[in-house]
């Protein structure tokens, strides 16, 4: 007697409407990003990204999924093979980059955008810091590059930035090589936010830290995000970190985005077969 009921016609991701309540323009807009390494490897395969003001966007996926490559491209460290990349920032002290495809800029202009509008924290502090310079000097370096020469101002700005990263100020003149992993990440963070960027990129920022330190660093990030409204893109393979920090998430596999959605929805009701595997593989 039990007759099988046809499943209703499902709502596809593409059927999600365009925003109507949020009228702000995305801070970050990327279209059709492609990065190849050699003739065979497509590390990033036509990826679109959007992030709205004050939002934390998570990117998850296994090693080799292309998520860190995406972050390097967003940081203008590497040139992609195709794509458009726009940052909507209303800041006047450098050339406005609104409506400009950043990937079409020449090297010096790209460097300027990177310096003033983008901050990054790497998993490996050696990539972001000079390990033998003082911590305060590492932070001040960004400000010097931006043209500040006054020693007193540099020191004060470094102090403010380190304090915002909840770095113990008594150690601000110690070199990162003498600091714990958690403190090194705080120095990187202070350096990244020194010029109040519109976009903060985080590449596995707490991976490798022990669990209690990880919680504290994540809490600093959350507080910073709330206080400053900086837009963040965080790459992590740790779904717990993503759940704690990200508003929305995109799942990458083989260079492609296989699913995107609200963080809790992707983790609790994943739609894509790969995402289902990934979520259920969590311990």
């Amino acid at each position, binding site marked *: 007697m*039990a*007759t099988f*009921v046809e*499943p*209703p*016609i*499902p*709502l596809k991701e593409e*059927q*999600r*409407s*365009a*925003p*109507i*309540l*949020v009228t*702000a323009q995305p801070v970050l807009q990327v279209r059709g990003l492609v990065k190849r390494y050699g003739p065979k490897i497509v590390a990033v395969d036509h990826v679109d990204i959007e992030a*709205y*003001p*004050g*939002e934390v966007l998570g990117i998850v996926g296994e090693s080799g999924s292309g998520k860190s490559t995406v972050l390097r491209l967003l940081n203008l460290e590497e040139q992609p093979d195709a794509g458009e990349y726009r940052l909507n920032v209303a800041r006047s002290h450098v050339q406005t980059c609104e409506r400009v495809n950043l990937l079409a800029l020449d090297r010096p202009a790209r460097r300027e955008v990177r310096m003033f509008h983008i901050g990054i924290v790497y998993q490996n502090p050696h990539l972001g810091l000079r390990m033998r310079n003082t911590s305060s000097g590492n932070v001040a370096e960004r400000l010097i590059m931006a043209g500040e020469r006054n020693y007193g101002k540099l020191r004060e700005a470094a102090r403010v930035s380190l304090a915002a990263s909840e770095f113990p100020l008594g150690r601000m003149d110690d070199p990162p090589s003498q600091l714990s992993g958690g403190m090194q990440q705080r120095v990187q963070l202070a350096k990244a936010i020194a010029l109040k960027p519109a976009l903060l990129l985080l590449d596995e920022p707490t991976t490798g830290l022990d669990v*209690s330190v990880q*919680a*504290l660093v*994540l*809490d600093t990030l*959350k507080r910073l995000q*709330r*206080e*400053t*409204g900086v837009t963040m893109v965080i790459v992590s393979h740790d779904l717990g970190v993503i759940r*704690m920090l990200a*508003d*929305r998430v995109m799942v990458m596999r083989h260079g492609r985005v296989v699913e*995107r*959605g*609200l963080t*809790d*929805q992707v983790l*609790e*009701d994943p*739609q894509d*077969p790969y995402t*289902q*595997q990934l979520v259920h593989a969590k311990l």
Partner: protein
Amino acid sequence: MTLLQVLYLSKHFTVHHLQRQVPAFDRLSFDVGEGEFVLVAGPNGVGKSTLLRCLYRTYLPTAGQALYDSRHGVIDLATAADVDILHLRREEIGHVTQFLRARPRVSALDFVAEPLLSNASPQRGEVGWGGASASHAQAADLLAAFGLKRELWDAYPTTFSGGEQQKVNLAHALIAPRRLLLLDEPTASLDVLARAALVERLAQLKAKGVAMIGVFHHAEDVRHLVDKEIVLTTDHRRLPMESVVPGLPSVAGNGHAGGTFSVAQ
């Protein structure tokens, strides 16, 4: 005034490694007005929590509509853009669950005050940190109302007992003003006093016009608040709609006789 109109809403889970569709509920329709309390009833596993999660979009509805009359116009929660849902979660729709998701090394007071702080959106030129003391005062009031011992306010909820965690969780979920609350067994694991405090709080919110859709293990606690009851049943794992929304065609008689979904006014 109708705040939420649910039309033919369905949720099926697709479990890819089993290559199976697991239906949760099918073609559900009802509406909720401002200040109205809708009780969702039915046996375990019938999809009560799933319905709430679909409306909060923790689960993606499979089909149908959930038309919500937001302050900025009507929006379909089933298909709304993710950023719009985030906006509604910050400003208008709350989800109260039985599970605390506290973060390590965040005190009970800070955790409860948090929704007020992040509510001050930088987009609107407000600085969240400025209102911290007022937010903490509200958080303290609410924790006191739910009966959490004062010496625990500065402690980390991750170390609390289940009942104490739930008090923190409720305070966190109910501190910010909301127009629609989705209540998923909020009284589970609460002692009698805390349950009474919660029901009192819900009554106040209802009086202010807050709409609520709730699943309650102890339904008798909230019986006096209930305006409407939706009963879900497992019959054939499908729930054809009976015509409950005025002006809409009924799908009964569409081969789906034996309605397994009913609304009691």
